[in-house]
């Protein structure tokens, strides 16, 4: 139970941190395709922020839209 809660809280943050560190180092240590890998992995945190800040708003929009279409 304790471990499950721990990984529930820290699982995603840890994954994001690993992606960021990988992205930062990939562009520094490699060239060519590694730069592409770096750009892609570093986009994940950016998209995460955008998705999670917009999600509640979109859900609310969706709900009110449903209310309109099925009164």
């Amino acid at each position, binding site marked *: 139970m*304790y471990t499950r809660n721990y990984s529930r809280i820290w699982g995603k943050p840890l994954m994001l941190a690993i992606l960021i560190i990988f992205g930062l180092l990939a562009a520094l*240590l490699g060239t060519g395709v590694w*730069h592409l890998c770096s750009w892609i992995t570093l986009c994940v945190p950016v998209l995460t*922020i955008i998705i999670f800040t917009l*999600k509640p708003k979109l859900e*609310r929009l969706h709900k009110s839209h449903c209310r309109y279409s099925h009164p």
Partner: protein
Amino acid sequence: MFKVKNIRKWFWVHKWTSLICTLFLLELCITGLPLIFLEQIDNWINPPLSYASLPANTPMANLDSIVNISKQHYPKQFVRSVYVDDDEPAVYVYMTPTMKPDDDLGHSIQFDSRTAKILKDNPPFSQQPETFLGVMLSLHIDLFMGLPGELFLCLMGVLFVAAIFSGLVLYGPFMKKLDFGTVRYNRSRRLKWLDLHNLLGIVIAAWITVVGLTGIMNDLAVPLFGLWNNTEVKALLQSQQGKGSLPQSELSSVQAAFDTARRTLPGMTVTSIVFPDDQGKPSRPYHYLLWAHGNEPLTSQLFYPMLVDARTGRLTAVVKMPWYLRSLEVSRPLHFGNYGGLPLKIIWALFDIGAIILLISGLCIWFARRKSREAWLEKILDSESINNHENVY
């Protein structure tokens, strides 16, 4: 499990470390934003000079003749260094009217490296008008205050890293009952900011930690180079301390020193030649100091200094760079984000904007009514007390 007393302690640390550094960090993030695109903005404001179109394999002109042309233009001045551009076919000769360390009338002449023709004779740096990027750089590096400003911002950086760490510690208990990335828009305004603060903070935590730590390193550049000059470089030049310089007319060939350096470190790019200087710290009356670097993304950041005797033209030593200067060199790209093309710069800017919102949201939470802040803390503490009966205070 986290003890109630500990949460209070970490909350206090997070509040005060952030409060002290937030305004300065905000200033750093905002001035840093245009600096990410320094090259692009600079090329846009000052379009690169048009170089003579010559075949790509045209050899470089002799550096001695470039230096001689500079001396003919300013016969009473001293050549201090020659910089061979590794991107463009340009050579810059830096001159000063005197050899004094605080001479602020230093100026540079830009040459076409293949034809040895003067492209631009720049006015002294101190008399050039302030540029937008120059102001941004000064605000970002030292707040126009020189070394004290750098050390002050370094201290703010240390507080920032402490704020990040304490924020991470608080993230655990805060998220105990919430899913990752929950943003409660339908509750109070303060809760909304708090949720956004937590989401932003945890997602970009690794990036702000890296940029914070490398920023601290960069602000220590002056003391670290000073330490190196006063120990390893000084030891190499020990026998020559207190001796007068050779007249510049008696120095050995610059081109020969450049060639010696290139032969010593094949596969590297030699970019600059600093002339003998008996008033520097340490005094270097008889030696050229040459700087070379590698050609890969990482090795291009690692510099190799060499001393070439300006009396004989022979190599004296490749000076060893200590670990702290190597760390500083690796810190630079990781702070600037200038090592992975334009896409990386854009990502850097997005992270930077994220950091700005993180700081502002932190301030918003602080400005929110104290009462509700206390209530929030009490709430967490309550739920913690329920979870650890043994730790009730």
